């Protein structure tokens, strides 16, 4: 159970292309999981300059090392382009340690 409002950062390589395309699908996933959230978009390089992020969603398939080193729960949303929400929702729950 997650009660607080999650600060979610959605990133891609450019900050404006694939992240913009997938934003509605990300919102749908978070809505279906019942979370309260606020999404900000950016490029993956901006993550370290953004405070208090609870969850990073990235259109990348694998995360560069410097993102892993930030120790923020990070989930790839690449599968959302093919419409696979279940996979991504499960990954988000796991990343946030959200037990049923």
């Amino acid at each position: 159970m997650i009660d607080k409002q999650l600060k979610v950062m959605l990133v891609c390589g450019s900050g404006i292309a694939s992240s913009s395309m997938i934003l509605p699908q990300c919102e749908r996933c978070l809505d279906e999981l019942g979370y309260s959230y606020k999404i900000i978009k950016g490029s993956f390089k901006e993550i370290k300059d953004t405070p208090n992020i609870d969850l990073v969603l990235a259109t990348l398939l694998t995360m560069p090392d410097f993102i892993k080193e930030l120790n923020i729960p990070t989930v790839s949303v690449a599968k959302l382009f093919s419409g696979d929400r279940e996979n991504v929702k499960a990954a988000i729950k796991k990343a946030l340690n959200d037990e049923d």
Partner: protein
Amino acid sequence: MDNNYCVENLISTESIEVGFLCDNKNDAIRKAGELLLQGGFVKETYINAMIKTCEELGPYIVLIPGFAMPHARSEEGALKTGISILTLAKPVIFDHPDNDPVRLLIGLSSYDNDAHMKLISFLSNLIMDSSFVDEITSCATKDEVFSRMLEYEKNYRKDN
């Protein structure tokens, strides 16, 4: 939907090519970039930036099976918002775990925020259509691709 946005401003037949033959992803991306250059959407520097972005960040640009959307950040040489469309004579491997091989590329240049968001919304819609890649790759000429895109746009406007 305001009338400033229309496919005609975002795609030019100078930026479309069908049946391009190459055997590696960098050549395919480079060609998509050269088409953007020909259409006046980008400076030459953008082309290498497109290749570099894919190399550094991996093949995430292969968004759905058969389809890649190479692009770079605007500051790397975008002049105006628009796309190039490239179909390949032979599919090419991009090393994506699920969506290889690629037969259709849409190169993307983003410059103006308003036109860009409308283009992105239009493209999102296109890739959700499961027949999109087949439809475009079956076009024999660039004029066919262009009119197919106009049709997609007409349908998109109806629902949006």
